[in-house]
């Protein structure tokens, strides 16, 4: 993938991290978060948020794919024939996802087994194609790369937040499956009759949590409220 990082400085006369460019990264954290505001990429957010470790790796994979697909599509946007642009976008996404999946199999085999089909399903993650259509097709490579990274991180943050809650209440532990695993809920609470919430390990809990996140997000960020 390193071959794709052509120096983006030449395409932009404004400073690399001008205010506008920084907003491209930070906006998706809050005002235009892909999950809680744009409501994209929910499918995988439900499936792989049962543990923090999985979500972290999935988040990284998606950041890689959004960043580099945005960069690639934006670099060739002027020569993509418009009649087949969606196919081109899909080919680029699918290629990147395959590369990510191969890398996982080679360097993080256990995690690739746990994420199983969901790495492959990044291809269908609506965030990626959404950003390609909405941003990369009409902007220069450098802002597109930033937009991709920003949206990937925006997605990863929500994933981690959901996974954090699900893992604590579903299994009483955090970071399980990694060497850093530790128990959050001490044994004496179990002895007093507490038990792990089985609902939390099921995907259904993720949709409830994401719903709550959207609610809290809107209550807190007045810009998101539709006043018309």
């Amino acid at each position, binding site marked *: 993938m390193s071959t794709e990082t052509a120096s983006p400085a030449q395409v932009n006369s404004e400073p690399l991290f001008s205010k506008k460019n920084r907003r491209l990264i930070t906006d998706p954290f809050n005002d235009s978060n892909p999950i809680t505001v744009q409501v994209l990429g929910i499918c995988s957010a439900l499936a792989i948020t049962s543990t923090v470790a999985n979500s972290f790796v999935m988040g990284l994979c998606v950041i890689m794919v959004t960043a580099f697909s945005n960069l690639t599509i934006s670099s060739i946007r002027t*020569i993509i*024939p418009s009649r087949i642009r969606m196919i081109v976008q899909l080919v680029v996404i699918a290629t990147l996802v395959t590369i990510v999946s191969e*890398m996982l*199999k080679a360097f993080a085999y256990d995690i690739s087994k746990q994420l199983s089909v969901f790495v492959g399903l990044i291809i269908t993650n609506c965030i990626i194609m959404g950003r390609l259509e909405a941003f990369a097709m009409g902007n220069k490579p450098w802002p597109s790369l930033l937009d991709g990274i920003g949206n990937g991180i925006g997605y990863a943050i929500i994933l981690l937040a959901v996974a954090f809650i699900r893992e604590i209440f579903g299994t009483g532990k955090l970071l399980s499956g990694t060497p850093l695993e530790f128990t959050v809920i001490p044994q004496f609470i179990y002895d007093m009759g507490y038990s792990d919430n089985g609902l939390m390990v099921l995907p259904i809990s993720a949709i409830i949590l994401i719903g709550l996140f959207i609610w809290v997000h809107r209550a807190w960020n007045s810009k998101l409220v539709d006043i018309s």
Partner: protein
Amino acid sequence: MQFNKDSNGFIILFVVIMVVTVSISLSLISSGLKPLKDKNEMVDKKGKILKSVVLVNEKEEKELFTADFVLNEFDSKITQIVVDYQGNVKEGLSSFNVDFKKETRKPEQERSYPVFVYQDGGEKYYIIPLIGLGLWDEISGYLALKGDLTTLRGAAFDHKGETPGLGAKISEYWFREQFQDKTIFDEQGNYHFTVLKGEGNSLKENQVDGMSGATLTADGTKEMIKNSIAMYRPFFEKIKSES
């Protein structure tokens, strides 16, 4: 330069270049990483085989099962034999490379069954592969039998797509642990092993708990073990009569 990027000619040219570039780069990456992927898969498979027979608690297992340990232990303690459907040993084959899933799809007479014999001190354990269907997809595993070929040493399971938190519990430690010291044949030599429904049952020597919320995965596990034992029965009988 003015060109019509929506002309049919350009579209075809664009697609050809794109497809060629993508396929070349993907095949380069895939073949470049192949040695690493193969090694991971090999360690994973050998690790699963060993987990059915090397009994340590969950925490120790995590620390113990490094790639080096798995490869070393496998090479030094495991003898590989391949048997046919009548239980006769086929010479000159290594069982690790026998694809059990493919073998079970062949006509019975042509099958080769892999067996791994683990030797530790004076004890001999026979490890056989398992393959079956869970709720969504394939489940698989290894079953280790003690030298009497009636009592289980342990088991290890894996799955492809069982529901996380329900059927996926099949690969968790507590589920595997239950198989230790259970018997698969009764005193008359009839198969009597079974996986019960749900968790928290009071268990006899031939029973293990299923998984609550995953009765179909548990049933699949039961069938899988039954089928594998049936396939290896002639081999077991041979060993028993020889000793």
